[in-house]
């Protein structure tokens, strides 16, 4: 294992100390238990957004705390959901009296821990609504199963619902918008290499020098299929087909597109992926209104990429364009 770390057990704590030292103007970091809140929290009268999940997906979620996005992020250990006490304390710390929205990726651990925290916060009279993201088309969906994983669309939910909350909308409306973003978003990822969880010390999975994993999860979970590596255009074709066919997206749709790096893939490759994605959308009459290209929801140092498309309407685009000022996403201010 080759990493720029000290003791594997201290990775998350030291990362948080780094964030605290780097961005005192944007966020406040609480160490015991771990959570990050925006510098001016709690904002009186504003719906507060709390998200969280395992660490190792940076900049998700801590990098999205700030004006126009999250009020708090709760980082768990690497790839491990945060605990109810973290989420409960963060919820209390940002509650401004207008209710709190929990944004939860659909993993059994995340869902259960947020559920326990919501019960605890509600017990103290804080109104909590929850939106669960589940946009990963690589996973079969069915009534009898856990359902799909929450991946890239989570970034969109945090941005758009964050803007809605900043605009003063009430909890029910912010939650409705968050759900709308999730329902209109679909993602798929792929990996060329594995990642290594620091405390595990060795790669999560083995993969041949000429192989790739299609439909990978953001924790290095196996995906849909393992196959020989192909040219980027063919890989994007496969991913786009799975994504577009799922909602399905139709000619005339307007979308926000994200080409996301898994952590170890350079930007030069992400633009090659975006090129093909834009060509495909163009050919199908789908208009990409906005885009993000870079590392937004990662899997440690894994090489690979994911694509997220979200069908947008005027309201969602307006909230997308609204100013945001966080360590990892910033525009308009």
């Amino acid at each position, binding site marked *: 294992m080759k990493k720029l770390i000290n003791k594997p057990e201290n990775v998350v704590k030291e990362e948080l100390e780094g964030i605290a030292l780097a961005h005192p103007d944007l966020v406040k970091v609480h160490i015991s238990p771990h959570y990050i809140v925006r510098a001016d929290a709690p904002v009186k009268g504003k719906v507060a957004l709390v998200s969280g999940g395992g660490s190792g997906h940076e900049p998700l979620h801590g990098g999205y705390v700030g004006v126009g996005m999250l009020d708090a992020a709760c980082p768990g250990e690497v790839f*491990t959901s945060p605990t109810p006490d973290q989420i409960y304390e963060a919820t209390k710390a940002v509650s401004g009296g207008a209710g709190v929205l929990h944004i939860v990726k659909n993993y059994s*651990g995340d869902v259960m821990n947020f559920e326990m925290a919501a019960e605890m916060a509600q017990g103290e009279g804080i109104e909590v609504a929850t939106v669960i993201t589940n946009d990963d088309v690589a996973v079969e969906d069915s009534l009898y199963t856990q359902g799909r994983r929450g991946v890239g669309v989570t970034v969109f939910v945090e941005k758009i619902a964050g803007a809605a909350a900043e605009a003063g909308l009430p909890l029910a409306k912010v939650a409705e918008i968050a759900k709308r973003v999730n329902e209109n978003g679909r993602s798929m990822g792929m990996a060329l290499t594995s990642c290594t969880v620091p*405390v595990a010390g060795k790669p*999560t999975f083995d993969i041949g020098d000429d192989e790739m994993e299609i439909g990978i999860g953001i924790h290095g979970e*196996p995906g849909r299929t393992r196959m020989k590596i192909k040219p980027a255009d063919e890989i994007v074709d496969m991913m786009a087909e799975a994504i577009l066919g799922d909602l399905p997206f139709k000619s005339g749709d307007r979308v926000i597109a994200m080409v996301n790096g898994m952590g170890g893939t350079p930007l030069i490759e992400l633009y090659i992926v975006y090129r093909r994605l834009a060509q495909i959308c163009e050919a199908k009459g789908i208009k990409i209104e906005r885009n993000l290209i870079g590392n937004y929801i990662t899997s440690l140092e894994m090489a690979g990429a994911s694509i997220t498309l979200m069908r947008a309407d005027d309201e969602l685009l307006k909230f997308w364009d609204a100013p945001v000022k966080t360590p990892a996403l910033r525009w308009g201010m």
Partner: protein
Amino acid sequence: MVTKADVLNWLKHYAQVVDEQKEYLTQLDAAIGDADHGINMQRGFGAVMSQLPAVEDKDIGTILKKVGMVLVSTVGGAGGPLYGTLFMRMGMAVGNKDALSPEDVVKMFTAALEGVKQRGKAEPGDKTMVDALTPAVEALRQAVEAGEDLHTALEKATAAAEAGMKATIPLVARKGRASYLGERSAGHQDPGATSSYLLFKSATDVWNHADA
């Protein structure tokens, strides 16, 4: 009777087993999950061990609830709420006792299983810890009702847990991370079912004195 000392020994023994089996549990999780179950459980029971002295003079119920709370706040993932709920429900089921009859032990494990099912919404056959716990609790109950001594009953429960754990191998997961794999989850043993089997095995190994 299971004394408070027995309960404490069980917890200590299980913490040690988790420590020894950390790699193994993590390996199982690597195949169909995210390679952290052993790490999570070890972190949790390490914390339990360091916080146990503070409640050792309390009753069994208080001790078990404390264990649950420590697990909830240190394990994270799915294991945290599930094992946390399991121990908290055990504590609530036995109340402020200092020793447990075989019937108390049945009540305790029954409540534990109920809590896990409520929290995780999993049913037997979903390829989770419920698949080890369900037959174990059932075997324990039947043996105690049939008048067998607790140690024998626990041996049967452990055997049933082991069979349930092994029976997860061919299953396609419907809950937890492994479910994202669909058909590809078949052929691997569930890590949570394995740690649950070890929980029964630890009780059997520790509660082995004549009058248990």
